[in-house]
């Protein structure tokens, strides 16, 4: 059985999880450990007048003033006009969203820590609350951050060829489109356990994080201690999706406790906390105006985008990431040369915005794909045809689009054509015409997108973020018995990199997969990487692993040649064997020579031994663009407002597939989240900034009957810039579903004159839209 690139290999990490022997932060208990609970703000905006700790327990309760030497989290960028926010680890003078941590309580058990938190008295002077981004943008007096002259984190303006291309366009389509605020809901919330290690004089911080090296830098920086005094270990992580790619104030608080008191402290986020403080993603509003020709060919696109940025900018990626991505990615996989985009990222009294799987691409895909369908309806053509004509064609690759993004490779049109074939559009159109016996309305929708992955230094440095990704490194080391240890600074939270990175190592070295061990997550033992986010890990860490393995091969040959007393030039390396003209030795023989019998080594042996740490960056790091077309069929029950997905097809291309099974899993999981965004998930706030969905009773997560059996078809167009032509793909599944589902529903309801443009598509919204459409077509009636 093949074990290298392309192999559908079962995962090494499964064994422990199937037996309940995973090792999550909440599974760890150290001697003398205390548990932490946070008192969180019950109001959305106010000045803290007074905090009274429970008498007798003052030394178990900590407020901002007690953490004097800890700096506020400030996330800068060099983007002009960007405003800094100070996110204090515990609220300082003001609270700016419901759930903001005001105090932390320490006790032997979590239950007792919560008991303590209930005994703290806090008095507030309440301030007016800003819950609507448009209103907050226009607001003249109330300030989320008092040192600002408005409530806008950042405004971006971009223009290229717009006026000329828009001029005289025969078809003009304008739409207002919105996505609701939601949470990411990994099954494991954030969690941190910190202790001081006397032997190494280090803070040992076990954190459920996607980015251990970034957390290490951040903790040291904001605690004001040397980098060398912090070691971050990320064990098993129960999902991240972007929630865990930033420095959490709770991580800072708990690390401070351990540093100050030299004892272990642990905090585990519970579900209510997550749904309240994690209501931080997807909330965009669009006004799009598309200028097209009479065939639906897009000529120019004008966009006004508002992002509800919440109260604070997170470190290190900053809230600027979202508007930047929105502006840059809105043009999507399409060929048009006129573009104008204004993006406002507004501060409101809600949790600060974080980059959720897909980041702004989910929103921009939703907005543009709905407009493409609206254009198609206006010009009387099938949406998929109009889409097809607008997609960048394979012969134009590599293509520099109107937002200056460089699409490296791909056949976007072929993916769409395949999707149309696999969903069997013609059969569904026929069935749609016949009508359903149960009265439901059938609709078919398409959505296409491309996804910038593994973009690196050249892209991020333009933003001036405090941490710019650069060369990911991997360390490979042959063990005395001829096995291989691989260490990289990325970290799996479900992506299976303990398996896929081993597959890449096998591809280069031929060592049996069973003898390759991949170790991730520990800043003390792994080389630096900014971590796992932005669909970068398999490209970056994979490239580094390949590079490091390649460096070892000549060393195997040199030692092997010496063992066989033959010339190196006559040696060949294949599958763990050094093969000479007459005989061969195994890698194990070579390892034993280096480690156990050095007397057998050549006198000029490479002092690097059987271990190498090498970095990698793609030849061009402006991004390896994965892409896909999604197609879906829905049945809409117009009596109760229910949408059932009858079929769902994804034709995706992420370049060379390392493990098709893992790619499918990532695609399916992302698509499930996208379906959640489309139909179920919402974090609404009342006018006082109170979150209205703080438990699973109100926040609906799709289950197995809400997610259909999605069919996936792979295309493989390698990237010219990466090792093996691999592209990242972890986020893609979550990008297109809202677009494809809404396009399908709008197709179903076309005869009723209904067009839906706001997520999630709840039964109430669907029924109200049908009612509104009915009312607008009926003659005015006198009501009694």
């Amino acid at each position, binding site marked *: 059985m093949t074990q290298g690139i392309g192999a559908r290999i079962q995962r090494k990490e499964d064994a422990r999880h199937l037996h309940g022997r995973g090792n999550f932060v909440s599974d760890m208990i150290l001697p003398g450990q205390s548990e932490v609970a946070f008192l969180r703000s019950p109001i959305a905006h106010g000045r803290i007048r007074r905090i009274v700790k429970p008498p007798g327990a003052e030394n178990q309760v900590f407020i901002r003033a007690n953490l004097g030497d800890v700096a506020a989290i400030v996330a800068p960028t060099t983007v002009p006009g960007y405003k800094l926010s100070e996110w204090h680890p515990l609220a300082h003078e003001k609270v700016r969203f419901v759930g903001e941590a005001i105090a932390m309580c320490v006790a032997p058990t979590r239950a007792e820590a919560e008991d303590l938190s209930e005994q703290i008295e806090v008095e507030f002077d309440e301030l007016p609350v800003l819950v609507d981004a448009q209103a907050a943008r226009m607001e003249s007096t109330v300030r989320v951050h008092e040192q600002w002259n408005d409530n806008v984190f950042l405004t971006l303006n971009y223009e290229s060829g717009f006026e000329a291309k828009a001029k005289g366009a025969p078809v003009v389509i304008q739409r207002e489109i919105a996505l609701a605020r939601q949470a990411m809901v*990994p099954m494991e919330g954030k969690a941190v356990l910190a202790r001081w290690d006397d032997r190494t004089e280090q803070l040992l911080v076990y954190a459920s994080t996607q980015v251990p090296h970034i957390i290490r830098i951040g903790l040291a920086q904001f605690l004001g201690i040397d980098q060398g005094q912090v070691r971050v270990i990320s064990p098993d992580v*129960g999902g991240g999706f972007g929630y865990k790619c930033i420095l959490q104030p709770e991580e800072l608080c708990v690390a401070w406790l351990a540093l100050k008191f030299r004892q272990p402290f642990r905090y585990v986020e519970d579900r209510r906390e997550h749904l309240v403080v994690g209501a931080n993603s997807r909330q965009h509003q669009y006004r799009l105006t598309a200028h097209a020709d009479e065939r639906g060919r897009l000529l120019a696109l004008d966009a006004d985008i508002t992002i509800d940025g919440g109260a604070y900018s997170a470190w290190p990626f900053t809230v600027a990431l979202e508007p930047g991505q929105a502006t840059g990615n809105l043009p999507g996989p399409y060929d048009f040369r006129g573009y104008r985009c204004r993006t406002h990222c507004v501060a409101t009294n809600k949790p600060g915005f974080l980059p959720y799987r897909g980041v702004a691409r989910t929103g921009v895909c939703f907005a543009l794909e709905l407009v493409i369908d609206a254009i198609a309806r206006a010009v009387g053509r099938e949406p998929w045809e109009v889409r097809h004509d607008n997609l960048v064609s394979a012969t134009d690759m590599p293509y520099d689009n109107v937002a200056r993004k460089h699409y490296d490779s791909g056949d976007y049109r072929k993916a769409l054509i395949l999707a149309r074939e696999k969903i069997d559009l013609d059969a569904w159109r026929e069935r749609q015409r016949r009508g359903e016996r149960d009265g439901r309305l059938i609709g078919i929708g398409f959505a296409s997108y491309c996804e910038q992955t593994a973009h690196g230094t050249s892209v991020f440095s333009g933003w001036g973020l405090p941490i710019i990704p650069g060369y990911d490194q991997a360390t490979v080391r042959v063990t005395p018995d001829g096995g291989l240890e691989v260490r990289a600074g990325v970290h799996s939270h479900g992506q299976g990199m303990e398996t896929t990175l081993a597959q890449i190592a096998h591809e280069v070295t031929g060592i049996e997969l069973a003898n390759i061990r991949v170790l991730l997550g520990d800043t003390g033992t792994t080389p630096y990487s900014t971590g796992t986010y932005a669909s970068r890990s398999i490209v970056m860490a994979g490239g580094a692993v390949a590079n490091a393995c390649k460096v070892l091969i000549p060393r195997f040959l040199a030692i092997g040649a010496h063992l066989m007393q033959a010339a190196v030039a006559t040696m060949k390396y294949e599958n763990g064997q050094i093969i000479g003209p007459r005989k061969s030795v195994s890698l194990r023989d070579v390892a034993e020579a280096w480690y156990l019998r050095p007397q057998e080594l050549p006198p000029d042996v490479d002092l690097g031994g059987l271990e190498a740490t090498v970095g990698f960056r793609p030849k061009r790091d402006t991004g390896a663009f994965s892409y896909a077309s999604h197609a879906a069929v829905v049945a809409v029950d117009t009596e109760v407002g229910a949408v059932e997905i009858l079929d769902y097809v994804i034709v995706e291309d992420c370049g060379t597939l390392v493990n098709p099974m893992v790619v499918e899993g990532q695609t399916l999981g992302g698509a499930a989240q996208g379906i959640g965004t489309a139909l179920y998930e919402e974090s609404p706030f009342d006018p006082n900034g109170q979150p209205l969905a703080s438990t699973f009773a109100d926040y609906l997560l799709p*289950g197995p009957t809400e997610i259909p059996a999605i069919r996936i078809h792979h295309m493989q167009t390698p990237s010219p810039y990466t090792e093996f032509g691999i592209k990242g793909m972890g986020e893609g599944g979550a990008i297109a579903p809202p677009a494809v589902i809404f396009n399908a529903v709008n197709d179903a309801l076309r005869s009723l004159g209904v067009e839906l443009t706001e997520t999630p598509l709840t039964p109430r919204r669907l029924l109200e839209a049908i009612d509104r459409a009915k009312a607008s077509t009926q003659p005015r009636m006198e009501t009694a």
Partner: protein
Amino acid sequence: MTPIALSVNGRKIQALVEPRTHLADFLREHCRLTGTHLGCEHGVCGACTVLIDDEPARSCLTYAVQCDGLAVQTIESFDGDPIMQELRTAFSREHGLQCGFCTPGMLIAARDIVRRLPDADARRIRVELSGNLCRCTGYLGIVNAVESVIAARASKPTAVAPMAAAPPRAPLQAFAPTSEVARALA
């Protein structure tokens, strides 16, 4: 503190617990059986599913004091169980797990389905698994895994015969309803 004595994975455990300690925390913190996970603590996500007296239950909604005298089984205890072995093999083959956090609860729920509903098709499996949320897999690998185990067992001679279909019946005849019910409800 209340004294309790119960069986956990076949071992007799005696402990003093606060009544408010739920079974999941008792298992995780006192017994150090951390395979049972907490995903919501309000009975929706299923990550905490264990067996109590052989039936799946949410350990976050059951207090340890309620389990005095009962037998609890967690994910750590199924090594010799044939259905669990087949499920574990199938989950790995069908890629039914990614981050692993929901997996223990998912396996216990899946085992109950295989054991209780040997005729379940994919649709039924999905309905029965609705009490176990997964954020990573999109459920397809999980459903395929359970389906494959059911199919393999169905081909074995010891499979339970399917329940007989209900006999056909005549449609409802028109009648004059009594006014008693209406009066009672007035």
